[in-house]
């Protein structure tokens, strides 16, 4: 009798345990807590025509994000950094996006080219994603889901024009100088003039008929001679290093660097590439930039990641390395703000898009660029540029950060 009661009581107790415990724990016998992470997709060009810029950019982003993850991520959220080598190919860029768009919380898509950005735009719109790419003015004129990595090309060119006027006057010259523009015969090559031309007119400068040459030209004598014969006092050379280096090398061979001041854009000569190859030809060349360059970049605490991650000696650091760091910093700032706004569970492309527009005025790039300009209706990462000059084989600053004119607004889109 007593034994039976014990058996019965035990059976009832066991049934209670089996019934109640899972209910109390909400049916959640999960094996392990899932790691919180977000995805940063970099559709880079690592072996194609613009690899000279994209490889150091990738190294900068990769180094910074690795360090960020080692410190626990962004408020406990780790970053999965996916890099795809698109070789500057638009179809490959979009195909790669299609392949990776369903990865976990893809919050940021870096595209390698203006054409790639424009091809991806409808997909990002549909997916409510966030893009990041080259500073093409059209993306500011028609703000969508793409954020520019700096001020636009035309804004930078306009800042150079301001400097040209000041330089001309400082030299005691009267009237206004004549300015020539040379660039690749493609949309990027023409972009500075879409608003830059109007800004030159506003300043009263004479902008000579531009000279466009095929990307990959090895000699530029014909174009240079035409501009020189037209009376150019200043020549602005577009193109990714080493194109501007080669153009100015040819100008020196023609004897033009003695009488004409040459200048290059955001992708102009770097100490590690063009300047190293032709220091004498490039002496005196002015470069406008929205990110620190030369020794300023190498001496910045984040520039030192180049050496810390074993990429080489400080002298080998191409300037675009710090551009990659700013890419990662922009991403980090956006995610951090989005986490504050909506929390991890609701963190998606739309939350990131909204958050990116709330970083206005912040020093998200820790001094590597001017303050952040992203805002509602504003897609330029920063409005500030700095001018550098090549002196004795070094890229040295000749101005502080200055707000670039809004040349995008001057163009009739």
């Amino acid at each position, binding site marked *: 009798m007593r034994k039976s009661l014990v058996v019965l009581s035990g*059976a009832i107790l066991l*049934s209670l345990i089996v019934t109640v415990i899972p209910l109390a724990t909400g049916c959640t016998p999960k094996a392990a807590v899932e790691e919180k992470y977000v995805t940063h997709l970099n559709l880079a060009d690592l072996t194609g025509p613009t690899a*000279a810029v994209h490889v150091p950019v990738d190294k900068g982003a990769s180094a910074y994000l690795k360090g960020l993850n080692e410190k626990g991520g962004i408020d406990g959220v780790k970053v999965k950094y996916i890099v795809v080598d698109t070789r500057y190919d638009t*179809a490959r860029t979009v195909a790669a996006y299609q392949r990776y768009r369903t990865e976990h919380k893809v919050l940021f898509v870096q595209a390698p080219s203006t054409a790639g950005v424009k091809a991806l735009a409808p997909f990002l719109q549909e997916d409510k994603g966030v893009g990041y790419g080259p500073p093409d003015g059209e993306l500011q004129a028609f703000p969508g889901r793409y954020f520019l990595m700096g001020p636009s090309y035309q804004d930078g060119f306009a800042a150079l024009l301001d400097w040209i006027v000041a330089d001309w006057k400082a030299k005691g010259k009267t009237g206004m100088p004549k300015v020539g523009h040379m660039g690749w015969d493609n949309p990027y090559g023409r972009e500075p003039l879409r608003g830059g031309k109007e800004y030159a007119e506003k300043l009263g400068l004479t902008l000579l008929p531009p000279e466009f040459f095929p990307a990959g030209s090895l000699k530029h004598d014909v174009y240079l001679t035409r501009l020189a014969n037209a009376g150019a006092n200043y020549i602005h050379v577009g193109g990714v290093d080493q194109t501007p280096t080669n153009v100015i090398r040819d100008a020196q061979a023609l004897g033009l660097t003695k009488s004409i001041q040459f200048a290059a854009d955001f992708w102009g000569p770097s100490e590690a590439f063009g300047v190293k190859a032709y220091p004498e030809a490039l002496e005196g060349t002015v470069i406008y930039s929205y990110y620190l360059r030369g020794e300023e970049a190498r001496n910045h605490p984040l520039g030192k990641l180049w050496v810390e991650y074993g990429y080489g000696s400080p002298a080998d650091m191409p300037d675009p390395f710090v551009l990659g760091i700013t890419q990662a910093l922009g991403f980090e700032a956006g995610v951090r703000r989005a986490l504050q706004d909506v929390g991890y569970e609701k963190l998606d492309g739309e939350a990131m898009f909204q958050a990116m527009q709330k970083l206005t005025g912040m020093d998200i790039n820790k001094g590597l660029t001017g303050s952040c300009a992203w805002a509602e209706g504003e897609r330029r990462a920063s409005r500030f540029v700095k001018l550098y000059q090549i002196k004795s084989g070094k890229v040295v600053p000749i101005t502080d950060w200055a707000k670039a004119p809004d040349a995008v607004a001057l163009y009739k889109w």
Partner: protein
Amino acid sequence: MNRLSLRKAIVITSLIMLAAIVLQGIACAPKAPPPLPPAPPAGTIAVEPPKIDYAKVEEMFNLFVTVRKLPPAAAAAMPPCVGILALPITFTGEGWPADSWVFIELVVLPGVEIPGLEPGADSVGIAMGKTDSEGRLEALMETTAKLNFLLRGAWTPYFTPDLTKADPLPAGTYTIKAFGTDRRTVTTITWELGLVPPAK
């Protein structure tokens, strides 16, 4: 409590336990995701030319040299497969959703490496196009795609291809996949490529 009632109690209790376990199994089972809506139907795809043989590549190379006015020494430094750059390659199709994007990918043969292709990926995007209001597609294969993926070419630091270093895909029958924006919408065809001299 007599012996019979005890046995009854044990049986009843066991049944309750069993029922509890089964019910929990049902309640706590991972919920299946809601079924996806059916994928839009895939259209057709065709490539022109459907077969590229080495004789055609050589013929196009001669045209390429003439049009580009290449000096004999420069032409001699290039492999004839570069002629593919002068050959228009077009993908056409119909029956796709209207006003939608179609992506063309080349499936890589086993053991063949393509620069830029990430580990584990078995196909590479080579063209894309948007259908018209009738669901018809026409997409051109761009020069960069030919250079990067058919010729596996190298680039100079001057934004220009180094045509002397073309390393064309091995000859063979390749599969072309055409996807809609929903990757379940897919159709395939084969494409014969002979960018290298035929084996003797």
